[in-house]
């Protein structure tokens, strides 16, 4: 079964690129347009892995991750942080918010896929 991915980013371009990359690699992708919308989509899906942006309207990436982690069923759902900054303190903040890993934007498609497999495994292995 294909891995389910929830990707939350307010930029349509980034969502389009994620869609292209994810569907090309055989993932089933769902999208949220900001933190609040992401949580709504989360209600209707059960993603194997979540990708989120940092700067978003209504609820930013940190808020989103915390809100996801508060839900018992997503306590250990892998969450990748998609960010333009790669400063170490940002990583530390991401991790303390509960992020599993991070991908520097603009992302390299292969690297993103590798990272997804790294945190969520291969769909068929489940």
């Amino acid at each position, binding site marked *: 079964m294909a891995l389910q991915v929830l990707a939350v980013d*307010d*930029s*349509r*371009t*980034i969502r*389009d*690129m994620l869609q*292209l990359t994810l569907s090309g690699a055989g993932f089933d992708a769902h999208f949220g*347009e900001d*933190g*609040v919308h992401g949580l709504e989509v989360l209600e209707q899906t059960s993603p194997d892995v979540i990708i989120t942006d940092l*700067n*978003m*309207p*209504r*609820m*930013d990436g*940190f*808020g989103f991750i*915390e809100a996801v982690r508060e839900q018992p069923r997503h*306590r*250990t*759902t*892998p*969450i990748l942080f998609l960010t*333009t*900054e*790669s400063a*170490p303190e940002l990583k*530390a*903040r991401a*991790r*303390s*918010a*509960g*992020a*599993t*890993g*991070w*991908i*520097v*934007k*603009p*992302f*390299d498609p292969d*690297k993103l896929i*590798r*990272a997804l*497999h*790294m*945190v*969520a*495994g*291969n769909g068929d*292995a489940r």
Partner: protein
Amino acid sequence: MRAPDPMAEIRASFFVECEELLESLQDGLTAMEGGASDSETINVCFRAVHSIKGGAGAFGLDDLVRFAHRYETVMDEMRAGRLSADAEAMRLFFRAADVLFDLVRAARDGTSLDEADIEATLSELEGLTGGSPKPEGEAEAVEFTPMTLSLDLPGLDISPDEAAAAPGWDISFKPERELFVTGNEPRHLLAALSEVGPLETRCDTSAVPPLWDLDPEENYLSWSMRLAADVDRERVAEIFDFVDGVCRLDISRCSSDVAGATACADRLSPDPTSARPDPEPEPATVPIAEPSAPTPVAAAGQTSPAPASPPEEPAKPKQTVRVDLDRIDRMVNLVGELVINQAMLTQSVAEMGIPANSPVSHGLEEFMQLTRDIQDSVMMIRAQPVKSLFQRMARIVREASASVDKRVRLVTDGEATEVDKTVIERLSDPLTHMVRNAVDHGLESRDKRVAAGKPDEGVVRLSAAHRSGRVIIEVSDDGAGINRPKVKQIAEEKGLIASGLQLSDSEIDNLLFLPGFSTASKVSDLSGRGVGMDVVRSSIQSLGGRIAISSEPGRGTTLQISLPLTLAVLDGMVVRVAGETIVVPLGSIVETLTLAGSEIRHLGPRTSVIHIRDSFVPLLDLGAELGYRTPLGQYDSSVVLLIAKEDGSRSALIVDEIQEQRQVVIKGLQESYGHVPGIAAATILGDGQVALILDPVDLMARASGATRAAADLTIIPGREPSAEESLHAG
């Protein structure tokens, strides 16, 4: 169908998104300039720039990334409250937004920009934060090149001789509790590692306590692995990047190839020190987690209700679908054909003598209604608010006013008015020129304004509205008005008009539209650019529009553009005159009436008016105006169409017969015949006949007054006015 390159499509949609982001940036900056100081407004601006940067990075648009990054950095200072949004800061923010706009355009069109100009804006911008342009700006920008993933694994430096050693890596890996809390899973990491090359894995379970002592959330396992792959260290370390700091990790080269197998195997044996859960690293990781964790939540909690305040629009994005414009155009054309087809069907049904209350007629009526609805919907797809256009004009005003040292405030009205996309695009150039003119020529210098008792800040007003089936766009200024004696003098000097002519005010104003009229003596470096008002007028005309000018000394000048709502279909009244079928746009007809001889008044040998409800309206014979016939002697009981101009003035057009009202598909004549005076376009009627579509206002403006009523018959001179004369006499 060809499969379009998905990246090219995303790239195209990125630029569309950029336009939207730039628009919300403008909105945000305008709100800030207007005094909005809530954090959400600056956040909106920040996110707009940030998103442009993010997307631009994906396409390797380095110039755009670099600028957006530095712009964003300064904006972040304001976001953090270290920089106040004073007038100077806002001015620079606007200017930077303009440069960003240019960079987006340049990236899209593959053109280049003046580096120095960009750099100057940046350094001024960065001057706001007190610091000199940060060198890190450049350094950080490097991080946005694709593929970069920083690997800051401390204490894992390889010595040169290690690097030269045999292929293979020994890895010992002991996850800590925190690794699981962040959602990482050792199993997947090991799987990922095994994809790098052949992997030998040993799991050390010696530390697992008896079941009754087991903490289900604690980790008691550790792994020793040997990776037989000739890859560099980064490739291995990359896999553990996410768990760096939440596990104990050691990566080292196998020392030799043959003996190395055993050596490695030896080293794989569980190390007694690392086999036991080590309590020490845990508290070390906790401090990272504790203090910063609650902050973002609190911040998010505070900012989330903020969108209730001014900039609410971006908070509730509408669902949209992107469609290739060609597809819409194809649909518009098809609907056009459908309208023609429906007209033909109506005609055949009428010719068959089918009664009006028959099911066929009813069905046809519904069909007509549906066709109309489809048409409206299709037109709505193409329609866009003029807001983006107006925002571009805001920039023109900023730039123009700065270069001639005038203080100018742009007031816009009716930004939500929707106009066909093509019209909006093609309006950009003429409108730019008009706005520039208003700032440059329309408004007086600051001293003169003050001397005239006006505020030194001039106002340029830009408005859009729907009126009588057309779109009216006005550019007005509160300047000194047109200097009519001077305009007339220039026109005479340039030989555009004979000297000594008596001209009315509006005739003088219209001299500005003459080709070759350029008020060079007062043109500053700013306007001009080789475009005169004649070019503005012809570009408006090519859109089926009209431009009018009005001016009041001391009070200002107004330029009014009137445009059709759509470029494809028209509601028209089909009339017959002198044996020809003509379509008159329905929107311009106020009413139709049958003329009684007593209503006609004669103002002179060539001018008649009709008396309608307390007002006098000029009377024109359409047949004579178009040169189809000589004016008739007798107009008693003729059919008259009362036509209204946008400014409310009216004329009456005499026709022979009104046939019907219907929708017609506009087929342009411009390409084949150029601008035909009095004629807007042509169409194909239901029976396949070609009919001209009248431009009543143009016709009225050029009216020769060749129409004479019965009483004038005796004094008709012995010649017939040719079409040429009738149309050009005005």
